[in-house]
């Protein structure tokens, strides 16, 4: 079979790889301290020493973008990993158990999904207080439901297949059945959903930090950089441009990659 052209996969993969490289190696290559305050440089424009300029406290914006990349991407990836693990377990277990357990679990999922996601995250973040760990909990508490639904649906259709039947006949216990035989079959759609999920979470993290409910200052995240830059948008628009472009580019990358993967696996959103 001739491989089909898949420009989304290539472009998205390239952008994601670039951003991951920036988050991993950026802070080591650019040794400027993202927290160093120099009021003499307040709102300074781009210069050789500070390629993206400085914020209102004279902190180097490039250094803060690089530090923020770790926070923003890190939060998104950790939350996706946690919610995917919980979702896969709950969804898979519900599908295998069937009957009343399945009904109860899925009702619970319905009720969480009856809340618009970001609202629940805002409410949880408000109660837990600002902080990195609390942010992850707030976002993860909502995230798992989508994966649970996806995995349950896939497992329900997969478990009737003959190879699963065979494994069961050979005496495989439910846990092994789920782990060795069912979840690998769900991997494709899960990868697609997780990729879109990272993009969505980058925006969610930014929105929460923007509302003052995410990563607390002075640590840098793209969301709180946007928030603090907003006050100076008239006199120093470069304060918002840098984090805005960083968020936009990463979300674009993950969305393209998700599109590409969906094409590859023939399904998805």
């Amino acid at each position, binding site marked *: 079979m001739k491989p089909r052209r898949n420009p989304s996969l290539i472009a998205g993969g390239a952008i994601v790889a670039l951003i991951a490289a920036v988050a991993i190696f950026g802070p080591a290559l650019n040794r400027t301290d993202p927290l160093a305050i120099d009021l003499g440089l307040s709102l300074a424009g781009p210069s050789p020493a500070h390629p993206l300029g400085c914020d209102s406290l004279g902190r180097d914006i490039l250094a803060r973008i690089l530090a923020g990349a770790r926070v923003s991407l890190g939060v998104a990836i950790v939350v996706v990993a946690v919610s995917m693990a919980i979702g896969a377990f709950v969804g898979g277990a519900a599908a295998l158990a069937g009957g009343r357990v399945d009904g109860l679990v899925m*009702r619970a999922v319905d009720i969480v999904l009856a809340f618009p996601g970001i609202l629940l995250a*805002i409410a949880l973040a408000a109660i837990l207080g600002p902080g990195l760990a609390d942010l992850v909990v707030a976002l993860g508490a909502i995230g798992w439901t989508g994966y649970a639904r996806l995995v349950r649906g896939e497992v329900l259709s997969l478990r009737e297949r003959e190879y699963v039947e065979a494994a069961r006949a050979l005496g495989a216990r439910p846990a092994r059945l789920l782990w060795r035989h069912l979840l690998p079959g769900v991997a494709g759609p899960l990868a697609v959903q997780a990729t879109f999920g990272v993009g969505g979470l980058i925006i969610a993290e*930014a*929105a929460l930090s923007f509302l003052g409910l995410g990563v607390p200052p002075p640590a840098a995240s793209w969301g709180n950089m*946007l928030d603090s830059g907003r006050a100076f948008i008239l006199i120093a628009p470069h304060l918002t441009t840098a984090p805005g472009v960083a968020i936009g580019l990463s979300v674009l990358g993950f969305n393209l990659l998700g599109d590409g993967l969906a094409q590859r696996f023939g399904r998805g959103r």
Partner: protein
Amino acid sequence: MRYFARRLMALVPVALGVVTLTFALIHLVPGDPVVAMLGDYAAPADVQALRHELGLDQPLWRQYVLFLYGLAHGDLGESISQRASVARLIRERYPATVELALAGLAAAILIAFPLGLIAGADPGGPGDLGAMGFAILGISVPHLYLGPLLMIVFSLDLGWLPLTGRGGFAHLILPAFTLGAALAAILARMLRQSLVEVIGADYMRTARAKGLGPVRALFRHGLRNALTPVVTLLGLEAGALLTGSIVTEIIFSWPGLGRLMIAAINNRDYPLVQGCVLVFALSYVVVNLLTDLLYSAIDPRVRLAR
């Protein structure tokens, strides 16, 4: 009719679940709201007094029953920071949020349809690439950045539109486009995909074969069929406009429910936070119900399923 009744009945447990989860959020999540309100160094007597005033010294089940009882009477408690009834504060702000959400919906449709039609009419052509490039940009640019960007261009540089606040139609334009941009992009992509499928269908070939031009065939036969999945998606995403409005309201100083809620969070005014979360969530549930009903009106097959 039986379909409508069944859908309405299904609403009851979901609404009760939403109410219970909202209550649990405020009352069961670790952290003492009273200490949060008064600060770590508050005198124990003050903490006791406020706890009593809020009814937090009652057993949990009693608080829950009282909460449900109040809710049934339209009573959401008293706001601590504003010394007014939560229900009244919400009633004052709610219309502004609905107005913004509807305007965002209109803006999304206004952008999505031309883009989707251009792209779907000539898949792979230059119009398709341009329109879809624009759409993927619309999904990627977060509205917390798009809002300020639109403000710079249209209010500050061009001076065409007011910067912030609520007023006439002109005040509505920038917030509406900020809110609707992401939805517009999603809708345009869906419309394109669904048009591409429809154009390849047999009945479209028949329409062309009997002599209709491509444009007339599309409008007479294709568009209507292509719209069904778009309407579904529109409904699924319409609820997101309600919450998307939270950030948009902050950016544009729009006096709606979102700003009320964020202010309540900053003031640690938990009764008010609880009320706002509840109203947002219930609105979302109702919007989803309306979508289902609308969908079944467009496509009668839905009513027969299940």
